[in-house]
């Protein structure tokens, strides 16, 4: 046991004093989160500026203001006709609404009241989204005024989390990516220990090699936990990402993910002779995973011929699992599938690593 802790301590010190690896391990994921977090956090729920032509003396104008203001995505501006239309032309309004003064025919109870809506043709959302909303608004008002009973009552209820922001989505993905890099690049340390003949020096002592390997893995897992803590902390402190799932489940997923990629790392580390060659090999594996497993782009936008590749990558499953646990994102795969695929990769890599491993 004393030997084991001495080894863990030696590894931790050797890694901890390596400024480069500290950067990749701590600063890099943090920078990623901050960068992408800020890029995407501006894009919250969209609001539309709606101008209402307010001509006093028109009893409908007040009702219109009240009704439109009640729609959360509408920001209401009032003004005279000239001013509002000018603002619409300048792109400062998405929509301008004017209730026309009731005509004589209307008074007589014949024609309906006219509500004029102006929109900017170059903004497709105005026509596609806002006009139906306005229409809905008016028919609702009409129903209330005429006292007609409601036939349909739409009950909208979110099945998923409150509302998933891009940052929530990204945070879990970046954690998955960090765990992947920790495991894959971390195992390259074994190549460097071999290349520098450190493994050989240790081999001339009664130290059991399995103990050495376990101590390396334990240090990696420790680093994975530190990374997770850091990423979750920044997510919470800077972007208010709350962990919705249980901490225990998160811990389990992080451990599984770390083990899978450490295992894969040792599989890759079995072959190259130099650390340089090893890093090249890892880059070849980790780059496609980083971009194709739905961390930065949703899997849906990828061409269908890439789907099998995506479905083979363990990172897709770890990111999906973490997203489901951390921010209750809609599942890409079921949790059971995630766990099974990750476990499968871990086992398969372990078998290959054990088969082809060289100590010198």
């Amino acid at each position: 046991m004393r030997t084991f802790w001495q080894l863990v301590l030696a590894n931790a010190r050797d890694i901890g004093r390596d400024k480069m690896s500290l950067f990749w391990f701590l600063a890099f994921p943090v920078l990623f989160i901050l960068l992408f977090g800020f890029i995407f956090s501006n894009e919250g729920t969209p609001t539309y500026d709606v101008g209402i032509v307010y001509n006093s003396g028109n009893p409908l104008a007040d009702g219109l203001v009240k009704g439109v203001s009640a729609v959360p995505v509408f920001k209401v501006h009032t003004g005279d006709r000239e001013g509002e239309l000018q603002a619409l032309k300048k792109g400062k309004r998405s929509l301008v609404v004017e209730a026309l003064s009731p005509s004589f025919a209307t008074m007589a109870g014949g024609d309906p009241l006219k509500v004029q809506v102006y929109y900017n043709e170059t903004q497709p959302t105005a026509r596609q989204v806002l006009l139906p909303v306005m229409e809905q608004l008016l028919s609702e008002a009409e129903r209330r005024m005429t006292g007609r009973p409601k036939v349909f009552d739409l009950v909208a209820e979110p099945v998923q989390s409150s509302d998933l922001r891009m940052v929530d989505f990204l945070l879990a993905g970046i954690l998955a990516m960090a765990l992947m890099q920790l495991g894959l690049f971390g195992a390259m340390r074994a190549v460097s220990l071999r290349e520098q003949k450190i493994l050989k020096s240790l081999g001339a002592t009664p130290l059991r090699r399995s103990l050495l390997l376990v101590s390396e893995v334990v240090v990696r897992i420790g680093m994975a936990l530190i990374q997770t803590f850091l990423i979750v902390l920044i997510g919470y402190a800077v972007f208010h990402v709350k962990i919705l799932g249980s901490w225990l489940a998160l811990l389990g997923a992080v451990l599984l993910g770390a083990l899978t990629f450490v295992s894969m790392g040792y599989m890759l580390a079995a072959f190259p002779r130099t650390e340089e060659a090893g890093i090249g090999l890892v880059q070849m594996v980790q780059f496609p995973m980083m971009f194709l497993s739905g961390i930065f782009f949703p899997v849906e936008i990828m061409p269908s011929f890439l789907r099998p590749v995506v479905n083979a990558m363990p990172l897709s499953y770890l990111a999906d699992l973490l997203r489901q646990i951390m921010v209750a994102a809609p599942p890409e795969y079921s949790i059971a599938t995630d766990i099974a695929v990750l476990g499968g990769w871990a086992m398969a890599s372990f078998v290959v690593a054990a088969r082809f491993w060289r100590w010198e």
Partner: protein
Amino acid sequence: MRRMDAVTVSGLRKTYGKTVAVDGLDLRVKAGQVFGMLGPNGAGKTTTVEILVGLRTRDAGEVSVLGMDPAREGREVRSRIGVQLQARGLYPRLTVKEIVTLFASFYDRALPVDEVIEQVGLTAKARTVVRALSGGQAQRLGVALAMINDADLVFLDEPTTGLDPQARRGLWDVIRGIRSRGKTVFLTTHYMDEAERLCDNVAVVDHGKIIAFGSPSDLISEHFEEQAIEFSNSVSRDREKFEKLPGVTRARLSENAATLYTRDVPATMTALMQLATGDDIHIDDVVVRRATLEDVFLKLTGRRIRE
């Protein structure tokens, strides 16, 4: 039990593809000795040591280290010896003290860390990271790691290679210190003077074979009753002329030096001086010395040990 052989080897063979690294080696190392394996680069010294400590497999032969076979009981063997490998590496960012402490944790009977660091003269460097050590300091750290186990047998593979003369002498004292504590030292070297001064017994190896075995003084007197006269000589290539001088048994000529082995130093010197004045041969930097292991190696192989 105490005085049994620390290491015995018979008929040891190891090949790498077509290279025969060790070619039927027989060795016997008595407990309590400093034993030296002396030979040029590529003679098979490192291969032998690595087989003895269980890092490599052998192709043929019998090997016993402290009564055990390192191929079958490697871990047990390694727990009872100390090893300094020639090709080794250490965690570059750990300090001397941290490394020695780590290695101490591998053994049941480890010596106090500070004491061992003191013995190899690294106390002032105890807090220096491995990366920042000079070649000589790294070499001494290697010896410290071989000494940290309170073992009966210590293997040192070329412990003084690359050190300056003063540092080498310092290490010799460390090695004598190990012997004075009743331990056995198995060391390899390609320095003749090191083997001669430090070792109780020497095996001279070349091309994976033992070509001479015994104590340095026995080896020298066995091969040479003569003393050696050396001088620089850039003119005469005529070996026979030198060998006809009185007392001379053999003469060796190299590019710009000559060595005469003689039974009668005064007679040879007198004749040599006459030759020099008469024949107009230029003789300079004359040294008279006993024969050394270098001469033995030269005689047995026709080559100098370090080309």
